[in-house]
């Protein structure tokens, strides 16, 4: 009886007797589809894991090396560093003679690591080869400091004007035997005064002043004689990029 039902179904659906041989395969077409689906799923999972791995490797920032590099860079441009004239201004002569020992004493974090410090591409100091290290850059000014001086010849004059702006003056007072230098004024303000006489070398700080006029008051028998040397630093400043690299 079931066979007649089969025959009816076949006739209704228009299928021919030949196709019945394929029915067992149709039952397993699902398995093939499942197999393909699992393969696709595995591939997607593997690709996802590989991408995650790559991203994790890229996110590794070596924070300890970066900390060492940043601390070293901060110490090199600090106002109280040996190589700076003031904050963020490097002294060209001192920077050229920088040593690894100085770096280690100001920044213990770089002990035992490879270091390279470059100023505008020129290597200032190097130890080892920090190829894969962290680099920190700072924009600085480089000052080429020279010393200029003017002389007040007490025979002829008692004052001199310094036109360039300078942060400090160094006075060398050398009066002759019959002269006593009592007072030194800068821009009409008394900066040194001694009734018994001033001699020798004195340093004065003159922050932010231009056109300083240095005047000297003396007393003594005969005309005043002797000299006062006024020396001051003059700096030519240029911009530069300081690059600090610290490796393992």
């Amino acid at each position: 009886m079931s066979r007649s039902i089969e025959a009816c179904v076949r006739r209704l659906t228009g299928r021919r007797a030949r196709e019945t041989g394929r029915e067992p395969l149709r039952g397993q077409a699902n398995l093939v589809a499942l197999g393909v689906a699992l393969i696709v799923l595995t591939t997607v999972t593997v690709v996802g894991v590989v991408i995650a791995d790559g991203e994790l490797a890229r996110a590794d920032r070596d924070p300890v090396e970066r900390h060492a590099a940043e601390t070293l860079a901060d110490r090199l441009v600090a106002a109280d560093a040996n190589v700076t004239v003031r904050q963020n201004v490097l002294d060209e002569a001192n920077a050229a003679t920088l040593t690894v020992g100085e770096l280690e004493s100001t920044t213990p974090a770089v002990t035992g690591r490879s270091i390279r410090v470059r100023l505008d591409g020129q290597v200032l100091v190097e130890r080892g080869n920090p190829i894969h290290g962290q680099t920190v850059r700072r924009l600085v000014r480089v000052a080429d400091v020279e010393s200029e001086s003017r002389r007040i010849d007490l025979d002829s004059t008692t004052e001199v004007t310094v036109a360039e702006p300078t942060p400090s003056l160094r006075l060398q007072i050398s009066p002759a035997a019959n002269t006593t230098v009592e007072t030194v004024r800068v821009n009409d303000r008394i900066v040194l005064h001694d009734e018994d006489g001033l001699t020798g070398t004195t340093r004065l700080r003159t922050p932010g002043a231009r056109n300083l006029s240095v005047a000297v008051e003396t007393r003594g028998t005969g005309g005043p004689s002797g000299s006062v040397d006024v020396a001051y630093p003059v700096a030519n400043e240029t911009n530069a990029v300081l690059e600090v690299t610290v490796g393992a």
Partner: protein
Amino acid sequence: MTDRAVAPVVGKGVEAALVVLYVSAMTTVLYGGVVPEYRTDVGDELGERTLVTAANEVEAAVPPKATVPPNATRVERRVRLDLPRTIRGDTYRITAQNDSTLHLYHPATSLGGRVRLSLPNRVDSVAGTWHSDGETRIRVYGNETSLSVTLETA
């Protein structure tokens, strides 16, 4: 005839078993090998970054010379610090050694690290321990020429 009726049942049964097998195999592979490795890598990175942040905070807590009045008899400063409570699921400790380094101690021995502090010469000693599950503070005390830094945990 009964074979044909059973065929779909067996087919579906095989498919279901195959899927279950696949899922369990995948889970084993992932949780057995891949996931713990990633957790350790991330824990490593987090530990390093925590150490460096802590070092930066300690260095910033030391008042710069310019802000201390010249004849100050006492300097005392307390700064709160936020550390992540756990790394890779476990609480950890950060200890200061006398050679100005911070050490991270973690129960999983592969995690851990040290960082050197760069402190000015005025700082005489650095000591103390932080436990990551407490309230962590940095205490700086002394006078203008001699300072001590202590890591405190409430």
